[in-house]
């Protein structure tokens, strides 16, 4: 007899979602989280006295409405300080481009581009709806599919056929190609092309020219299907989302222990039987669910030596090279961007003036160098939420691409220089900006790896690329949340459908565990 039915390793948002669903199905669940705060990469952080930012993801764009409703996250404290924000692509000449849901505006835009964008948005949403359906269920297995899989596959196939011959053939082509070509096909305005193509490479080790990036873009647009007509800001920072999910889980009866890093997942006869915490405490349970990324789960927690070699090979070959850094800046006032008024400062600001600019920024990452001119996704959340900074002051959070995990010269000696480079890049658009910076913190992929226990510092627990999604995620043999280790399940972003603070990996995993019941 054990005290728990399920041990959940990792109190990230997916882990907590999974735990909550399991508890609601009557399981006795214990969540073990290494850090003090809950929510994993949905985290807030006071990086300088009085200044708080979302330390990993800074926009909420994807959260599944089903998860949100099922867990009643609002009741548990989830509040949006702002939602349906614009994305503004900053142009060096001040002719910025503003995307609001399915429309785009900007002084430099032709009417054709504006119309083309609305049409483009309509089409992509149509495709993303299909994706969203596939995201809500477990992916079918590649070969030995069972009845459920075949039904799911049939539904997906039928959904594709329902698109109509024309759109279906478009989807077959689009999903594989790159943003660069699609942008060239559809638009003239360079800032618009860059702004949209940046969505295709966000968080990825890819440039706009890389095939598969349209898939990355469709992936982002699943957020629109989930009801986000633009990014949202969580009140209190993304950490508040983590707290809300944790509260929901507790309310469902989940027990949560923070500051309890798991040393290893214990096996008996190739079956998971519990965990050992750092410090030696052993906790037994018939099921263990890992919210950690697949590489960390198998390399570190299970141990490669305890699984078979073919599986080791598959796990170790998962591509998890992050090229994203996070820069946090404490500002003694609101910055002044050329061509933007103060009401626009709370929107999502993107510095990526051309597709070639992003591509060049990516080129460096291929060779283990940081971008000389990085592409930036900027959030000044304090505009919407005054609790994040002292009165009159502001916090800026910047997603910086590209900053390779395996920087050739090593990050320690490069951090300061890179921070300055990002500040200078922003200053080109916001004169006098650098003098407003009173404190800064750069989280490189190496820091993110350490902070959030994500291998390679990869936000999505593995590259979102066609060879690593759907029935290939995280790797064949573990695509339905269960693994070759009996009693061990995966529920993190490394599993289908992936990252982006959606909560679906956690929900799908819970459903699979509940469905398998006694066989689990």
């Amino acid at each position, binding site marked *: 007899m054990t005290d728990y039915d399920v041990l959940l390793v990792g109190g990230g948002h997916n882990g907590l979602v999974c735990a909550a669903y399991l508890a609601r199905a009557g399981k006795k669940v214990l969540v073990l989280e290494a850090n003090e705060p809950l929510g994993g990469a949905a985290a807030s952080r006071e990086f300088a006295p009085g200044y708080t930012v979302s330390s990993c993801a800074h926009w909420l764009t994807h959260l599944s409405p089903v998860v949100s409703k099922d867990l009643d996250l609002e009741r548990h404290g989830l509040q949006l300080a702002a939602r349906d924000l614009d994305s503004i692509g900053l142009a060096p000449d001040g002719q910025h481009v503003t995307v609001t849901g399915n429309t785009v505006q900007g002084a430099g835009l032709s009417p054709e581009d504006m119309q083309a964008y609305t049409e483009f948005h309509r089409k992509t949403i149509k495709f993303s709806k299909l994706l969203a359906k596939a995201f809500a269920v477990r992916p079918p297995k590649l070969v030995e599919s069972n009845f459920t899989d075949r039904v799911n596959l049939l539904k997906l196939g039928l959904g594709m056929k329902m698109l109509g011959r024309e759109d279906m053939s478009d989807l077959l082509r689009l999903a594989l190609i790159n943003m660069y070509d699609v942008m060239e096909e559809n638009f003239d305005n360079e800032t618009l092309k860059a702004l949209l193509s940046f969505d295709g490479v966000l968080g990825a080790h890819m440039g706009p020219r890389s095939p598969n990036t349209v898939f990355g873009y469709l992936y982002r647009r699943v957020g629109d299907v989930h009801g986000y007509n633009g990014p949202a800001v969580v009140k209190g920072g993304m950490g508040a989302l983590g707290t809300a999910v944790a509260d929901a889980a507790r309310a469902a009866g989940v027990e949560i222990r923070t500051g309890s890093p798991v040393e290893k997942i214990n096996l008996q006869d190739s079956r998971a039987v519990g965990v050992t915490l750092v410090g030696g405490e052993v906790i037994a349970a018939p099921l263990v669910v890992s919210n950690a990324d697949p590489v960390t789960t198998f390399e570190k927690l299970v141990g490669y030596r305890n699984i078979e070699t073919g599986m080791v090979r598959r796990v170790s070959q998962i591509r998890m090279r992050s090229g994203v850094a996070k820069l946090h800046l404490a500002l003694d006032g609101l910055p002044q961007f050329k061509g933007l008024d103060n009401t626009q400062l709370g929107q999502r600001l993107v510095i990526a003036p051309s597709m070639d600019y992003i591509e060049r920024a990516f080129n460096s990452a291929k*060779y283990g160098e940081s971008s000389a001119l990085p592409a930036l996704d900027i959030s000044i959340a304090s505009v919407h939420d005054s609790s994040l900074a002292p009165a009159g002051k502001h916090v800026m959070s910047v997603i910086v691409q590209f900053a390779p995990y395996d920087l050739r010269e090593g990050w320690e000696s490069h951090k300061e220089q890179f921070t300055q480079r990002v500040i200078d890049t922003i200053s080109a658009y916001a004169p006098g900006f650098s003098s407003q910076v009173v404190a800064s913190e750069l989280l490189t992929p190496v820091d993110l790896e350490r902070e959030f226990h994500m291998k390679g510092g990869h936000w999505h627990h593995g590259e979102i690329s*066609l060879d690593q999604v759907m029935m290939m995620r995280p790797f064949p043999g573990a695509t339905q949340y269960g693994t070759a280790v009996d009693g061990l399940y995966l529920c993190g972003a490394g599993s289908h459908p992936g990252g982006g603070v959606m909560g679906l990996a956690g929900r799908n995993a819970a459903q699979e565990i509940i469905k398998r019941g006694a066989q689990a």
Partner: protein
Amino acid sequence: MRKYDAIIIGAGHNGLTNGAYLAKAGLDVLVLERNSYIGGATVSRELHKDWTYSNCSYVCSLLRPEIVRDLELPRHGLQVVPYGGGVTFMQNGDHFGNYYDHQRQYREMARFSKRDANAYERYTANVQKQTRLIRPYLMRRPPDPTSLKLRDLKDLAEFASSFTSLGEEGLADTLKFWTKSVGDYLDEYFETDVIKAHLAGSGIIGTALGVYSPGTAYVLLHHYMGDVDGNVGSWGFARGGMGAVSSSLAKSYQSFGGEILCDADAERILVKNGRTVGVALKNGDEYYADVVVSNLDPKRTFLDVMDASDLPADVVKKAENFKIRGSSGKLNIALDGLPTFNGIPKGSPLSVGDMHFSDSLERLERAYDDWKGGTWSKDPYLDMLIPSQMDPTLAPPGKHMMTVFVQYAPPKIKGREWTDEDKAGFEKSVIDQIARYSPDFKDLILHCETRTPREIEAEVGLTEGNIFQGELTFDQLLFNRPFPGYAQYRGPVKGMYMCGSGTHPGGGVMAAPGANAAREILRDLNKTNTVPEGYADD
């Protein structure tokens, strides 16, 4: 003017193959060729006295053996001589040799890494698994997943079941092959950079992508699925140059009564009442037929020789969006003697094969960065051969012919046309690279023909000088080639067909598109099929 049963625009190898099968079925066929010589991109040309250049395509492997045998090409003068070997020269003075003999190959690899040498066996087996999957589809029309017709659904089901027969591991590998980059794929097997670089070349040839661009693993596979005499993956020279392929096809075609008209530049495919009726030439002549087959690439077919008003709007859009990128150039060089290469003895089997000078994936990728930046690679990837070492017909005794395929070369230089200075700079970057590894090379050059995408497009008519008539990425393969919904050789206008490398299964001098198109045409005309089935792989 006399009315033909079918007119084919373009006397490339696919046009001639298509013509041969239509003529064999008893059709009255005319092939129209813009140039004064036939062959398209499979030609042998004497551009320097007593030297024969295969100045476009230069080696042979993918040409379907079923067609070679069925059209009796050997009787019509085609002889393919396989070559073994190959080498990548390294910056440190060493080199990586690619030997034909398995044990010798193992030892050469083991010199760099015993693990890699062993992993190569796994790699070979896995590549073989994948080629076995694709090869049966080379001589068939691709399935059409967008169609609801019974025949198409049956095709699709069969196609799907051939995948599951690979087992889970094999199928996962298939998906990787079709979506991954060749660099990432090779990283899964090898640790030695020069070995990866040597193998990766096949993943980018003719493609405007880098070794780390997703999708390039398939291009690698495309170069592995051919065979010479049943040796899957091996390559050979056409004796007398690649023109021997087209001339033997032409002779076979003519033996069935087919006609060829050279210097006949097509202006327009004539459409009346929603169906094709013939072809008008630039000189004003018109030729009539109910069936018109285009051997041209999809862009030239739909945006050039067809009138937009005769086409559904979506086809025009699709043709505009079809990716056919200029990415390569070519140097054809007459040599006063056989050059010496550092580190290998003269006449070594290594120098009879394909020679390369890029010893790391990073150098290959950086060469692609230059292309993205709108210029030719300063440190280019070369696929260089001296076929006159095995074919005495190409150069006078003691002299040699060298063919150098060069990547990357963009269709335009930073958005503008190529100039003669650009061309000279491009040529210099290639010659300098070779000379770094061959001390006597420069002194041996008697004549050099340099072809940038500009020349290839102008002469052969391939848009942007793309050798495959369209990128070989999965969005343009199988049922997506050239466009979804039009992948079974039938054009959007009744009576109009496509037979070029822009259709399934793509480029590389296979002749399969021409043959597969003929099968569909004959089917539509209710004629007895003359096109052979593919050999069954055991």
